[in-house]
């Protein structure tokens, strides 16, 4: 049996089992019969098995160079190294939809396994029906529109290989998978929300939904940082974020999921904000579908320029369906969702709502900016693009407000603020003032000084909360501070994890402000052994070399760099910026050589070289401070999220007995 045949059959089988699962879930709901529910649950692993088999069949076809499969012929070459071959399934549309559907079925399977414990027999059929419905959509798109196993009548001897940009950095093996795990993961909270609206139980869904949202959010966050890293290390422009439509498509669901993660705590604790939670989670899932529509339909011009096709229309329809289901149900039950409780603005719940509204606003502003070119073109026919300055301009006030709330919110107690809180807020305000003042005194720009102040303000908030918690426990139980700290860290994972995430976000804010403000760029054509004095460095060009690799050729311009000032400490040594020539691409791709140091990054790009004699090369140097800290902040956020998700016996019991309104 050929890989193509196996893949095609597996896809059909998974479509069949998805429809079966959907039908059984529907019957289980209609007749309130757990036997149908059991049948639906059994369909979930079968769908996963079918899609996993299809995915492996695609890998098999790639590894065995089976060019009778069109996808392999278009996106693979016998010269590809093994790791490139293994990541080729998500190098183009058909394969990435297959990966998407496979991960979706994995989530569905995990939910079906959890259905006994997490979901009661009333909600489980609806949650599973929603997930099977999404599954049917994705598998149908593959079977009927973008089949990865379409055959070629006359297979070529070799193919083009995947997009050179994807072969240039190993991060491409990681970033898309994380992104899909995040995007797809948001379907589970949506399914849970739909099920609780259908069966009209508005409280119990939030605990398990918070868990699933946190899982998806963690992957999404990691994916966004990984994408920034990839952009920085590969694209050669020295930046990590440009508010490109594709990047916006990933950040909009992130903001909405973040908003949900904040308001959901108020519902867990006080039973308020039910309607907000349903709305945020519906919007977050809809935003992932919208992002797919945006990037796959070609309606918006983007540097990423994915292949366009009829698939856009289908995704638009699916987006409308998601919104209609989510908000249709919400409007039906809205009369039962009235909040019975007062919210003070100077309380934890007030700060959480404020934060969620800021996140929602952020998502909305980025959505408007992304779609505005369509509005202008429809209205006046002019072709426009919205520049990155717009996004930065709106991000700064929103970012500052968020960082302010992020520090104050966790310090504020539930319901009402007391005296100790006022003292804490005073110390935090003092840190903010001192940090900003110190920044200005050092001659930093206002924005960077404010970012520094906000970072210290947030550190102060976390430090105060830690130290007071430790002191309280230490004195009441008469144990040492260290023991108190370890016990708190072990028993109150939720609080400590969120502190770690918040410190990561505050650090990211500082790193973004500094790296966006103080960036030096310089470009020069160097002759062999000519010395270039720039940014506290002495740069010398050594003879160019050619390197042969299986899938490409590379021109390397070795640079000998000596640091001549204290600021550039650690930047010395040799650099190998290169231009990679791929047979499938007319344009050589620059692979910059980056060296991170605690303060500055030194980023050398080979722009052009003497093709006749190799006597000169044009080199670009970009010096950006604190980018390393941005990656560290990403790691902190990921670790904090992981810590939040670790099973916690004490915390779980506490969550399970939280008051239900």
């Amino acid at each position, binding site marked *: 049996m050929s890989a193509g045949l196996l893949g095609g059959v597996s896809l059909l089988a998974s479509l069949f089992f998805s429809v079966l699962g959907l039908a059984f879930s529907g019957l289980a709901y209609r007749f309130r019969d757990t036997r149908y529910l059991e049948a639906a649950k059994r369909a979930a692993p079968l769908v996963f098995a079918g899609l996993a088999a299809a995915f492996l069949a695609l890998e098999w076809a790639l590894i065995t160079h089976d060019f009778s499969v069109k996808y392999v012929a278009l996106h693979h070459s016998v010269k590809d190294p093994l790791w490139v071959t293994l990541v080729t399934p998500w190098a183009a549309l058909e394969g990435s939809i297959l990966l998407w559907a496979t991960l979706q079925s994995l989530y569905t399977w995990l939910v079906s396994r959890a259905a006994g414990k997490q979901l009661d027999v009333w909600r489980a059929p609806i949650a599973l029906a929603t997930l099977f419905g999404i599954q049917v959509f994705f598998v149908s798109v593959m079977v009927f529109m973008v089949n990865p196993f379409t055959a070629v009548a006359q297979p070529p001897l070799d193919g083009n290989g995947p997009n050179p940009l994807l072969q240039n950095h190993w991060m491409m093996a990681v970033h898309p998978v994380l992104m899909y795990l995040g995007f797809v993961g948001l379907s589970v909270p949506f399914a849970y929300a739909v099920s609780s609206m259908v069966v009209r139980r508005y409280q119990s869904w939030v605990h398990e939904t918070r868990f699933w949202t946190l899982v998806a959010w963690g992957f999404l966050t990691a994916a966004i940082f990984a994408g920034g890293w990839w952009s920085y290390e590969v694209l050669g422009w020295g930046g990590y974020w440009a508010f490109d439509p594709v990047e916006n498509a990933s950040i909009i669901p992130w903001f909405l999921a973040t908003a949900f993660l904040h308001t959901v705590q108020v519902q867990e604790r006080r039973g308020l904000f039910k309607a907000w939670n349903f709305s945020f989670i519906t919007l977050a899932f809809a935003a992932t579908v919208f992002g797919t529509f945006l990037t796959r339909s070609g309606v918006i011009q983007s540097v990423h320029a994915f292949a366009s096709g009829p698939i856009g229309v289908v995704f638009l329809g699916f987006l409308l369906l998601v919104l209609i289901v989510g908000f249709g149900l919400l409007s039906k039950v809205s009369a039962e969702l009235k909040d019975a409780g007062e919210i003070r603005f100077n309380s934890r719940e007030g700060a959480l709502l404020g934060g969620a509204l800021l996140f929602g606003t952020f998502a909305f502003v980025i959505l408007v900016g992304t779609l505005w070119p369509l509005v202008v073109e429809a209205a006046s026919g002019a072709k426009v693009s919205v520049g990155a300055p717009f996004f930065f301009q709106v991000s700064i006030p929103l970012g500052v407000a968020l960082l302010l709330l992020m520090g104050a919110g966790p310090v504020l107690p539930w319901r009402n603020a007391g005296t100790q809180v006022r003292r804490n807020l005073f110390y935090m305000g003092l840190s903010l003032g001192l940090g900003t003042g110190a920044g200005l005194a050092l001659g930093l720009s206002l924005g960077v000084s404010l970012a520094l102040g906000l970072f210290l303000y947030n550190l102060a908030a976390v430090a105060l909360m830690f130290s007071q918690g430790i002191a309280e426990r230490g004195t009441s139980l008469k144990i040492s501070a260290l023991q108190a700290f370890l016990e708190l860290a072990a028993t109150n994972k939720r609080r400590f994890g969120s502190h770690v995430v918040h410190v990561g976000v505050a650090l990211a804010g500082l790193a973004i402000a500094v790296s966006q403000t103080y960036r030096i760029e310089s470009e020069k054509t160097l002759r062999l052994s000519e010395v270039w004095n720039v940014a506290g460095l002495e740069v010398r060009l050594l003879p160019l070399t050619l390197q042969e690799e299986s899938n490409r050729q590379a021109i390397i311009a070795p640079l000998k760099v000596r640091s001549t000032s204290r600021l550039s400490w650690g930047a010395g040594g040799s650099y190998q910026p290169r231009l990679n020539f791929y*047979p499938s691409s007319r344009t050589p791709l620059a692979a910059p050589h980056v060296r991170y140091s605690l303060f500055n990054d030194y980023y050398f790009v080979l722009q052009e070289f003497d093709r006749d004699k190799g006597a000169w090369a044009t080199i670009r140097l970009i010096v950006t401070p604190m980018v390393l800290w941005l990656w560290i902040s990403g790691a902190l956020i990921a670790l904090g999220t992981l810590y939040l998700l670790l099973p916690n016996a004490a915390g779980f019991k506490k969550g399970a007995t939280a008051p239900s309104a």
Partner: protein
Amino acid sequence: MKPKHLFGIVVVVAALGYLIFGGLGRNLVYFITPSEYFQDQARYQSRLVRLGGLVKAGSVQYNKETLALRFVITDGVREIPVSHSGTPPALFKENQGVVVEGRFNGEEFKGQELLVKHSEDYKAPGAGYSPEQLKKIIQETK
């Protein structure tokens, strides 16, 4: 609804409206061709625009020492001289399409960025170097 809530909402909505629509108006980057520019010169003067067209044959001058790049962009009807500082990207060739982001400065267009698309669909190399040619070039450089 209490008056103070209403007041708060009005303030927030107004601030948001200003932030979005004030910011959008100033930061719209128009995409135009040379002919469109000459239809309404005043409108595009000294604001960021994207100028698209073909690189006119024989007009490219590049000084690798000063990194000064000059060329003429044309849409077959009208032409505009462009100056830019930096290495031309590899896809930049005579008679090829190009999009330059920058500002008009009198008669001349000062480019800040030459835009090249990263495409997921690629064609077999046409005018570029074949691996054999490339190898030859490099071997001769040593």
